[in-house]
């Protein structure tokens, strides 16, 4: 419907085609085990992670090589974040949080390559991440604190009359967390990629193609920033949720 509506003016917009999941081999239906472009780009992300964090730190040098110092920088960045927000007992969960961070940042950046595919632009992917964090954190909270974890919703310093109302709001906001957590990431990435595609569609008109190419460059620069910021935000919010589970009192 969209293409028919637009193709009349000579413009062809297919901003969503870049998100199509295709099988890597042949044209068969996509089963759950089929190797697809999702597999390919996630696999490339895994290879990048291995390249940076395993091969790059092969030397174990006290005076690091360039790649090793990048790996150390990432390690220190997330380690400090976890330690600052969750406290010392949160450091135990650092490898899991770091896994989320490197997965998101590498799929985001690989997705910025032309003709590539971005797994993090798919709500199915980010929802697994977001709801995974949500359930893990909630179960951890109940495991650590039992029923005291519900104190998270019961503001003991609010006036008594307001407490039930606040509790309802808190419960709703707690359950919206995974939705916003996952849709924020997918939405940002999808929006950026779709906007680039829309501007690329305008480039077909000779008169405005310089403007549209300049706009693509500008949006691309913004997307480079967004790719990092969204990985950062996803990680930092994971830390904040983890802190709520570890220390629900405050």
């Amino acid at each position, binding site marked *: *419907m*969209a293409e*028919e*509506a637009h193709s009349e003016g000579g413009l062809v917009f297919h901003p*969503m085609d870049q998100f199509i999941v295709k099988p890597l081999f042949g044209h068969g239906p996509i089963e759950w085990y089929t190797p697809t472009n999702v597999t390919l780009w996630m696999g490339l992300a895994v290879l990048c992670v291995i390249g940076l964090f395993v091969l790059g730190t092969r030397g174990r040098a006290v005076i690091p090589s360039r790649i090793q110092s990048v790996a150390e920088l990432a390690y220190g960045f997330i380690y400090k*974040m976890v330690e*600052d*927000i969750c406290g010392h007992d949160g450091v135990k969960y650092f490898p899991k949080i770091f896994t989320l961070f490197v997965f998101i940042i590498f799929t985001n950046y690989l997705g910025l390559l032309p003709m590539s595919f971005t797994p993090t632009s798919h709500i199915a992917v980010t929802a697994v991440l977001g709801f995974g964090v949500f359930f893990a954190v909630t179960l951890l909270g109940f495991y650590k604190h039992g029923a005291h974890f519900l104190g998270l919703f019961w503001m003991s310093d609010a006036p008594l009359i307001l407490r039930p109302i606040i509790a309802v709001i808190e419960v709703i906001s707690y359950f919206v967390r995974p939705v*916003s957590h996952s*849709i*924020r990431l997918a*939405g*940002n990435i*999808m*929006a950026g990629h*779709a906007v680039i595609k829309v501007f690329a569609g305008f480039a077909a008109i000779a008169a405005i193609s310089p403007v549209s190419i300049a706009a693509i460059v500008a949006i691309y620069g913004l997307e480079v920033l967004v790719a990092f*910021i969204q990985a*950062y*935000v996803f990680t*930092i*919010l994971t830390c*904040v949720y983890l802190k709520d589970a570890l220390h629900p009192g405050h």
Partner: protein
Amino acid sequence: MEGDIASMGQFIGAGLAAIGSGAAAIGVGHVAGNFLAGALRNPSAAGSQTATLFIGLAFAEALGIFAFLVALLLMFAV
């Protein structure tokens, strides 16, 4: 499908939903501007609050993304 009153409604709805992105932009600008004002007043405390800044930006922006998502859903999925 052209001239279909339903698709007209779709597009109008998508356009209206896109206004939400602008509202989110106002919110993000507020967050960043207030952070900058505070940071200039007390630069020594600014460094420790960048995490808070990004969380605030993320919350403000998420709602804009929801509006954008509604627009996309109206355009492509309904």
